[in-house]
């Protein structure tokens, strides 16, 4: 069988298509930053442990440092550059600004993309490790600070801006625009 160590891929990013040759070793993170100059997504640990590189893949938050670019072909990729509605910031972005949910800002794009994912997961009724009653009949748990902290634990902040980050996520959660207010049936999580 013919083998090849590179491919030409078409990536769907923030509603646009980008076609480029990639060495198969290229992570989505490196493709975004080094090849497509989408440098909003940050490289922290490059080992899937810090969350700085979080992007949305088909609407789900993922770490782009462990995602091979070639394997992302055909999926909808949303980076921090694509979360706003034109000049109107995403409610999570606005809440981080309003409540100072950062200090140096390096982890912030990942925090914001992760929080957008969290709000969608919560709106779908998904439980977390700190949810007392995970039976589906119990309904979604209130998005308490404890729930936000647990759900956001994949995003580290070396400045320790966690208190304001939790406040910002809670504030954004109150904005129906933040989740798209999608109602999701049981079939959709199957």
């Amino acid at each position: 069988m013919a083998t090849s160590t590179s491919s030409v891929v078409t990536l769907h990013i923030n509603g646009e298509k980008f076609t480029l040759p990639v060495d198969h070793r290229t992570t989505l993170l490196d493709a975004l930053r080094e090849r497509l100059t989408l440098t909003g997504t940050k490289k922290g640990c490059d080992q899937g442990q810090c969350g700085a590189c979080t992007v949305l893949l088909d609407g789900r938050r993922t770490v782009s440092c462990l995602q091979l670019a070639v394997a992302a072909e055909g999926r909808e990729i949303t980076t921090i550059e694509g979360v706003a509605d034109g000049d109107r910031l995403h409610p999570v972005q606005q809440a981080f600004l309003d409540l100072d949910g950062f200090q140096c800002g390096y982890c912030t794009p990942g925090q914001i993309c992760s929080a957008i994912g969290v709000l969608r997961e919560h709106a779908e009724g998904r439980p977390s490790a700190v949810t007392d009653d995970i039976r589906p009949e119990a309904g979604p748990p209130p998005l308490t600070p404890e729930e936000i902290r647990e759900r956001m634990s994949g995003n580290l902040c070396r400045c320790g801006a966690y208190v304001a980050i939790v406040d910002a996520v809670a504030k954004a959660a109150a904005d129906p625009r933040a989740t798209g207010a999608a109602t999701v049936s049981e079939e959709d999580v199957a």
Partner: protein
Amino acid sequence: MREFDYQRAADVAGAVALLGADPDSRYLGGGTNLVDLMKAGVERPARLVDIRELPLDRVESTPEGGLRIGATVTNADLAAHPEVRRRYPALAQALLAGASGQLRNMATVGGNLLQRTRCGYFTDVTRPCNKRVPGSGCPALEGEHHNHAILGASERCVAVHPSDMAVPLAAFDAVVRFETADGPGELPLTEFYPPVGDTPERETALPAGALITGVVLPPAPVAARSRYRKVRERASYAFAIGSLAAALDVRGGVVHEARLALGAVASRPWRAHAAERVLTGAPATPETYAAAADAELAAARPLPHNGYKVDLMRNLVVAVLTELAEEAAR
């Protein structure tokens, strides 16, 4: 990282054919462990066969009343599934206790079963490791082993299996289904992971080139009252230093049925049959729970720096069974 070929499989037979029996090829699911190990040089595949688009992403009830879980279902989707939360809550809790939200969205059931130990000597290619390079030695025996095995280890390897998900699967008699070039096969989870013995490099009983297609959970009414409790060094996003999946059915003050499996204490999820034998038919009291834990942990052979795990697991068994019994009495 070594250069590699990449192929995307369209169906199960095609995936198995693409991989062949090539020991240099790997199936790629979520990649959360494999890509990380490739960066570290621990894994050096010449070809990846991407199986993420295979039609193995469903969770379905079986006619007998169990669940059939596809291999590419993500950890996040499985944890959120209503029937898992209703019928096997310890499984949902174990999934939710693992990794981070981002990783749970990527990681798949098949990949979770195949993930490698987080022993620091295994992941550091500059150090000897019998699992990575058979016969090279095990620095953990004399070195850093505070989170290593207390049960079923050998002189060759004392690493623990890192999966949370596999612990309740072991308790609930899960069966792993796979496909090979010669047709399908299946293995009970407790046989899927062989004892370490002298071959720590042989981590599963899967035939060469086999693709995990899913996991079947048999019906287990006892699992409806079950719990997963994970002890770790920080409150979230850390591997277990000890964990327990337990299910308990108490009738008239007597244990009718119990299921127990221990995590982070052995090279595989540790089904606690000895403890279950003590529990079954005995009064549902803390004394019984302690005796059950002692029966299981009698086989423990702790290393100089992980003896705490024996007490930890004993306390965990007593605490979780007590909670389950109290919950049943309410």
